[in-house]
């Protein structure tokens, strides 16, 4: 897209120095930001106005368009932390470590959003803010592992130790999450709770569009 190049600002020298750090350049960041903003507006329109109202749950169902994508992003971010952690231990490098840490921060943010939107959705639909079913329990444990990761890194005495300890925790945490899910599922089948309404597997096409754009 054609955009006028901005005139060099007084801080050009420091920005050039900043470009030497690992990460994207300013122009790339700006265009990504613009794209994200446009997509966010589209999502809001599609989710709140365009998609039809669901038959059983009513308007509260619209949280689904925010809740599930944030959950997926949260899990994906943890996977990225896992891969970056292995890569850091094997090869090292500040970029890899930066990817791991920033992915953990993103993951924590999105997992928090997932838990909050989930609770907001749960209260009108289920009548309760929280249940201890396997998915929710595993998500909560995942949230704690992320939080522990960031705390460990913040409290480590040197940057290099922070990177190394974080990598170890990233690997152990990710490997543990499926086991947590398995254990909580077995636990719940031994002590079954009230059945929850399942997410609709078949959605109307407009809802699917809204969901994908939101993702």
């Amino acid at each position: 897209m054609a955009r006028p190049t901005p005139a060099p600002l007084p801080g050009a020298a420091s920005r050039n120095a900043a470009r030497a750090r690992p990460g994207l350049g300013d122009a790339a960041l700006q265009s990504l930001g613009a794209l994200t903003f446009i997509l966010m507006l589209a999502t809001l329109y599609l989710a709140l106005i365009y998609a039809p109202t669901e038959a059983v749950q009513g308007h509260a169902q619209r949280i689904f368009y925010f809740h599930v994508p944030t959950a997926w992003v949260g899990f994906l971010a943890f996977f990225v932390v896992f891969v970056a952690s292995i890569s850091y231990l094997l090869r090292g490098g500040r970029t890899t470590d930066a990817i791991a840490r920033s992915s953990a921060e993103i993951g924590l943010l999105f997992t928090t959003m997932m838990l909050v939107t989930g609770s907001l959705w749960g209260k009108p639909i289920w009548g309760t803010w929280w249940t201890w079913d396997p998915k929710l329990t595993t998500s909560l444990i995942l949230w704690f592992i992320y939080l522990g990761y960031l705390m460990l890194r913040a409290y480590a005495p040197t940057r290099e130790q922070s990177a190394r300890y974080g990598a170890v925790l990233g690997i152990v945490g990710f490997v543990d999450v499926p086991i947590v899910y398995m254990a909580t599922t077995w636990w719940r089948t031994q002590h079954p709770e009230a059945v929850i309404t399942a997410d609709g597997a078949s959605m109307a096409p407009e809802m699917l569009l809204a969901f994908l754009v939101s993702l």
Partner: protein
Amino acid sequence: MALLGPNGSGKTTLMRLIATLTRPTFGTLHVLGQDPARRAREVRRSLGVVAHRPYLYEDLTGRENLEFYARLYGVRSPADRYRPLVEEAGLAAALDGRFEAIRAGCSNGSRSSRALLQTPPYSCSTSRTPGSIRRRSASSKARSATQPQGAPSCSAPTTSSLGCGSRSCGRARRRLNNLRRPGRRDYPRPTARLLPCTPRGELVTGFRAQVLAVLGKDLALEYRRRELVGSMLVFALVILVVFNFAFDLRVENARAVGPGALWVAVFFAGVLNIGRTLVLEQERGGWEGLLLAPLEPGALYTAKLIGNVIFMLLVEAVVLPVFGALYNLPVLDLGVLLVLALGTVGFAAVGTLFAALSANSRAREVMLPVLIFPILVPVIIATVQATVDRIEPSSAMGTAPWAELLLAFDALFVVGGFLLFDYVLEE
């Protein structure tokens, strides 16, 4: 050879780099032809290091300390090796007393004996005060008598053999040049580079020997101090009693809720103390001495894991019957004991690794529980549910294979800890 410099010029950092305790942030270093970052074990095998702290365990005798390090380094007959060293240093009489009773002056001799056990071609020592330089010149003469011919007794590479370009190297270089004044014949001229070492044929480092050495040392220390097991035990018992007030554990509830109380007590007591072995090493013992030894990969983790499992099993051996008595539950059952053992191993596998992670962090006491409990959720669920299933043959729809889950968890995390522990240990 001596390395001199003003405060903050990097002398100790340089020694730590050579001793493989730290990695360089930039630049390259070769010690005896090897890169310490990649070939740490080979370098460690060829070095003996005497530093500010003695790296000797205060609760062990001098003899036990020397034999421990000898076994770590794989020296074949330790007594033959350390006896002449100790006699040179004039410490033969003090060998059987606890190390903390030995005065500071004698501790220099013990330090040097420890560093020289494996007859390294090079030994490095750091010194803080100028006074100790004079004292050491007497012991240096003693040491050089025991060294193989042709090897200098105290050396450090000159700055010209390193790739560093910082100003502090320049200052150190100037100091070295100042030493070459006429009349000071006892200071050798700085060498241009370090000589490669000759292969050591007499050292036999084995994984099993090192694991047994560290494990034996930990058990001996605990037997002397009696700190860990006792405090864990009392804490667990107190929690069991507190649970009685926190939850209504009358007879009809006890079977369903009781096992939870038992396992909370065991795990909380474990969390409090699993980090202590490491902290005690750092405070009253030879933590860096362990790091300096040529440990096989995973040897230290295995030894610490087995030690922690043993301590926890000792505690559980008392807590379990007391629990059975307090809440009138039939817990002395083979199935429960199996679950107990598997759960303990899983707990210790994760705990040993995370204890090392949190030992160096700032909020150390609270970091360990925060990190460990989310990871241990499967173990907690499995142990409690399995215990409940054994105690109260359940009316629910079939039991899940908890013991198999614990076994898989244990296998996975013991292997994981084995692989990852050494990454945590590097300075």
